[in-house]
């Protein structure tokens, strides 16, 4: 994938050098695993020139953004090998490098304006990103293209944000080739207007079908924006959009087999290539088996050794469909649990009750070489951390022996920003070297704070989601690139009050005040006077009173 990105970037560079026009490129990679699961990765890249109007370019320019990444993800069953852009944690993750000196306002003001603008653009509740949950990591999102002395980084995540069609629609509208046409207007006289049938949309985006995408085990759509300026006036904004969908034909089909086709997975076919693409649109297919299958469809793919995939090329204005049929289509379900990732991160809660808690982060390094990683943990302020409880233990991966670490191997630095209630989160940034073939466990403890009555969400007893910890794996050699892993999202239950209590208190105290008022009022106002027996007459309504007791003893 990295190579592919490099190709795309190379293509950009060559194109943007030739003309100041906007360019775009798109690729679809379908990757099937032995379990039968097909991960579809739609990659789109655009380059927007200075004078062109594009919503994201407008945002990037308006808020002085050098680089920005936003992802909407749902589901955890992500296949890290197949996705290539990495598995993202559920919810929304946003980080941006922003210019320090900008005519508009300070970085923090622009950060909140940016979240609001993105919230409007993607119809998502990104406006819930506030300084309270935004962090400023020091060494986690370093990037070569951004000069960190001129720009500041902001990072925030909303793990509870649910993504749906309403986010996908504006996202896909950012693609140049995906303006939809009103189908209904044209279907009735199909023969009259052939062009309408041809290109309701063009390009791989014509496969987008909300029913299929949101039925997936995992889907993640992301936007990455980076702005490059050759001079003060000549800037291009590069926009990369990725959609990763993990579809399961085994689950979806009645036959419980691995066979699949585009029509079967998405319910649609590709409506030809996007005419705006400067280079050929490819559909890559990676299959779990080397033989024992055949491709369906008129066009047959070519195997590309370098890409380790079968390659199709899309043609202009030509419907495209394909499928795979196996001779032995029984899925290898045992494969599901296996993972070949070299570095893995898992995180879970420890402790009990609603007061004391702890977090355990387990990072395993299967590589034989030691690797340097940076762990970024952004925890909301109501998780009161005890940094003195932070402990590190390193085991050998197979023998489970505790390894004694010598100074050079440890190479551990810790940056810690304590939380200020309702103002900023606690941020732990821990850079450590993991010895080869080891498991490193970090633990720390925390107290759960009592938060204000109004700070609880409507579904208070569900608990609070905390964003994933981010593990930045630093390159071991020059040829490698830095990449990031995301841990699991935690659901932390806080002590919840009885929400009817304030109203009970109000009514109770009001009643007591009223009772006292009555007594005092009577004491002040009323004058008790004795009645003579003669005055005491049984009234018509005093039917339960005996005549004698009313009139007294005679």
């Amino acid at each position, binding site marked *: 994938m990295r190579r592919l990105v490099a190709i795309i970037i190379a293509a950009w560079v060559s194109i943007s050098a030739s003309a100041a026009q906007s360019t775009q490129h798109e690729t679809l990679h379908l990757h099937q695993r032995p379990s039968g699961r097909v991960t579809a990765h739609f990659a789109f890249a655009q380059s927007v020139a200075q004078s062109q109007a594009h919503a994201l370019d407008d945002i990037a320019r308006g808020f002085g953004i050098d680089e920005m990444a936003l992802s909407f993800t749902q589901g955890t069953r992500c296949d890290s090998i197949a996705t290539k852009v990495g598995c993202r944690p559920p919810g929304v993750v946003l980080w941006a490098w922003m210019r320090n000196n900008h005519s508009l306002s300070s970085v923090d003001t622009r950060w909140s304006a940016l979240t609001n603008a993105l919230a409007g653009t993607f119809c998502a509740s990104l406006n819930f990103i506030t300084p309270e949950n935004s962090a400023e990591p020091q060494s986690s999102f370093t990037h070569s293209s951004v000069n960190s002395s001129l720009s500041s980084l902001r990072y925030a995540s909303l793990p509870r944000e649910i993504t749906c069609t309403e986010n996908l629609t504006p996202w896909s509208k950012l693609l140049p080739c995906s303006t939809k046409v009103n189908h209904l207007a044209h279907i009735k006289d199909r023969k009259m207007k052939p062009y309408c049938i041809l290109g309701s949309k063009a390009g791989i985006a014509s496969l987008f079908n909300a029913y299929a995408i949101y039925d997936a085990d995992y889907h993640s759509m992301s936007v990455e924006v980076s702005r490059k300026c050759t001079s003060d006036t000549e800037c291009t904004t590069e926009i990369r959009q990725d959609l990763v969908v993990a579809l399961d034909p085994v689950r979806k089909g009645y036959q419980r087999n691995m066979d699949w086709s585009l029509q079967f997975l998405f319910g649609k076919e590709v409506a030809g290539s996007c005419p705006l693409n400067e280079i050929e649109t490819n559909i890559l297919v990676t299959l779990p088996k080397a033989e024992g299958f055949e491709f369906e469809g008129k066009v047959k793919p070519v195997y590309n050794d370098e890409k380790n995939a079968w390659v199709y090329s899309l043609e202009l204005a030509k419907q495209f469909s394909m499928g795979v049929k196996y001779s032995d289509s029984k899925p290898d379900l045992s494969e599901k649990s296996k993972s070949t990732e070299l570095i893995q991160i898992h995180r879970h809660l420890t402790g009990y009750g609603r007061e004391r808690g702890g977090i355990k982060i387990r990072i395993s390094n299967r590589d034989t070489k030691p690797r340097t990683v940076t762990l970024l943990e952004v925890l909301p302020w109501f998780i009161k951390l005890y940094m003195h409880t932070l402990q590190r233990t390193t085991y050998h991966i197979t023998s489970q022996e505790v390894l004694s670490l010598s100074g050079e191997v440890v190479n551990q630095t810790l940056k810690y920003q304590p939380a200020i209630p309702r103002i900023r989160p606690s941020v732990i940034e821990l850079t450590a070297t993991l010895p080869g073939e080891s498991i490193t466990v970090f633990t720390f403890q925390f107290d759960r704070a009592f938060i204000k009555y109004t700070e609880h969400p409507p579904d208070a007893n569900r608990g609070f989601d905390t964003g994933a910890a981010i593990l930045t794996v630093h390159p071991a050699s020059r040829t490698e690139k830095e990449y990031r892993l995301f841990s699991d999202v935690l659901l932390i239950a806080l002590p919840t009050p009885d929400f009817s209590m304030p109203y009970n208190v109000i009514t109770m105290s009001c009643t007591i005040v009223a009772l006292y008022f009555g007594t*005092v009022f009577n004491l002040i106002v009323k004058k008790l006077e004795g009645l003579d027996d003669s005055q005491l007459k049984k009234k018509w309504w005093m039917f339960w009173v005996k005549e004698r007791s009313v009139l007294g003893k005679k």
Partner: protein
Amino acid sequence: MPIFSPSVDVTQWPSFSISHWQKLTGVNSFILAGVTANHECIPSFLSRPDRVAHGPRTYYTDEAIQSRVQIGISFGATDAHIRDLSACNDSPASLAASYASVLDAFNSTHIDVLFASRLSVNASSVAMRAEALALLQTGFEVRRSTNLTVTLSFESASVTDGLDPDAIAVVQAVHDAGVLVHSVNVALKEPPLLRMGLAVPSNEPTSSVRDRDIKKRGFKSHRVHKGINTVNGQLLHASNQDPTASSAGMKIASAVKKQMNTFSNVRGVMLVPVLASKGLQFTTADAVDLMTWAETQPWLSFGLSSANADAEGVSGTRKSPVAAISQMSSLIRIQTVSILLILVALFVPVWWSTTQVHRAVLPTDQIRALAAAEAKNVFHTRVAVRFVSGKGQPKAVAESLQTHLNNLFGGASFHFAVRADTSTEETQSTSGLYQLRIDCGVKNIQGEGSVKLFEDRVVSLQTPAECADTESIVAQAVAVVGGLFLDERADFARISGSSSHNNDDIRKVKFAPEYQLIFNLMNADPVNLLVSWDIQAAIKDYFQNFVDAVEKLYDFKIKSQTKYFTSLPIDPEVINAGEDGEMAYCLRPHHLPHFINSAEWSFGGSVVSTAPPLNFVVYVPPHAQSPLYIMGHDQGFLKTNSFLIPQWGGISIVNPPKMAPAAVIHENGTTQAIRTVPPKWTLSSSDLSDPMHIFIYQMREILGVKTVGLGSTEQLLPGFQFNYESSSVGITKWELDRLARLTTIQNIRNAVNTLNSLITLIESMEDMVVQDHIREKVMVSLNAISTANAILSENAQETQSPAVNSSHDIALAASRAAIVAAERAFFDPTMVSLLYFPNEHKFAVYMPLFLPVGVPLVGTLVQEIKKRLQKRREGKTKTE
């Protein structure tokens, strides 16, 4: 002098506070009741080992000494189970010593001995106590050199006829022992301890209430304490009493006095009414009656006292019981009311400050006055008259022209200052300064003159009149200059008058200081034709000059974008057009409102800027729908092939050149691609010339530019030729000035209206928070309005020097600032926030308070009204 002196049950729980009661009632003497022997024969209150009655620090000693009250001690048991001190002592002397030890502990000079009827009073114990008393009384005078007041207390179940024989026997025994008895206390009802001021509303003698019982019956005991409160109240307010009680009390007192007459050393009788027990009880009137009566009887006291001078010394009281009781109740009332007042004084400010909504004070009156006042804005306009030929009388013409023009306009909308311009140099043209060039004595072919309107604020008049003929020259000049401004006066009248809308105004976009100009190239069919355009060059070539010309009114942010697959949401009609019978597609006027598919075509309005967008679209129809034309109402194709969407922008259809389709659909439904790369078509700047000129025209319409013509002059000067110089940039200076003046007036009006709406809104929503920065914006807007109004007032002085910024420009800038600030204040996000609790919520929350508080209030009100009515009725019957 009768006194009120309560007897205190020491063992009651919670414990009794002497000082408190002294303060409350003004009573200065208390009798501590019930000193008996405990199991170790030590004198203690009601036999309780923890309440030892003698010794250095006995119970109540400190408090008694501190509060400086007289303490009397009552000895004797009320119950057979409790041992009297006499049972522990074998000689009168030792008993007297026991008595003395207790009295000394309290520094007391008053001893009361209780002979309860229920106690089996045997003769020997009575005799012993009598002798002990005698010893004590004599010894006391020697030892303490003061008199010992001795009282005997009796309780009797039937005292209506005086004391029973047992009691008489006791008095006899005491008398025989030679004790001076200050009074015989008669409890009007048992139990004896429950005397006035300390009555326990129970038949059960308090002495029998053992410690654990008290604790066990905490509530009841507590009520006893409360009882003290209310007993005094009960004296005043007791209800359900025997009306004969007072006379009974008098009868008893008299009977006892009669019995006591036989005893020479018994000085008086005291009545101790026991309250709240069945039988003898007192109403207020009874108690007062009895006390009043007691005051007249020198031998009788009420409460616990003696009528003689000695007893007075003992008690040292100062108040009459009636006064004490009434004063006490009024004291309670004052206390209660003052506590309530303090609470109100404390909590009302707290409540006020916590529930208060911040509302900055806005200059409401000023805004209302501005909104109500009829705007009378006058533009001070200068006209320079210049004779081209050099002959003529410019000064005379100028003076006469000024008078005539001002008469024509009557001081409304325009005020003219005309001066003669004799200089040969060209003056710099600014808004509000116009030049009238007169060329006299020149005829055209028809023998008449001509008028030419130059682009740059110059109008020239060529007249056949002789240069000396000032009058006719002036008449023609008035027609020319007046004709230029008369239309405008009508515009102003419409704006400041009412809301009658002109159709032209529908097209006009609302004023904003900044607009986003977005040029969209809509390529419906990129598969067959990839269209691109050289929009940057086109804007530079055609549009930039217009934008620069209107710069002082608006700022523009120009952007462009290309959109693909922008097919129409409507189906154009197919018609045969052209010579060779080719197919053409056309849109009829009723199609046009549906042309823009704004849900699918994103027009790229910025999310960063709040400037309103103006969209100009070059629409390239798809191959299958081209050529596409717009058909007018006259069934002919529009030459411009474009149309305007009011307040939104303009659309121009540019048909692509004919090309073969990229794919062919065969009859069997399969498609076959012909090309792999779509052909390209670039619209150069010159290709875009037509659409851009149309856009400029549409822009004029949208911005509300009105042409300046000499329409009315043409009628006044028949035969004259009229020429207009066209503008190279799309707007002449005349038009620009007219637009600026119109915008100024509209902005002032709109700013005033916006501020007026703002204060109406704020006044109608009382829970709305009004922050200080809103006030600041309102003040900025108001200041700008008043600046503009001052410049445009009738009396304003127009500087004659051709300043760079003329008054028109200053007024425009002020009006612009006014509308911007007013709109910012009105659309401020903080103006949306309301208080968290609206009034409905508050009432719902306070209902549990209001309802129970309201019920007694309403009840009392009803009762009060009833009483009033009854009184009135009674008054009526009395007068009758």
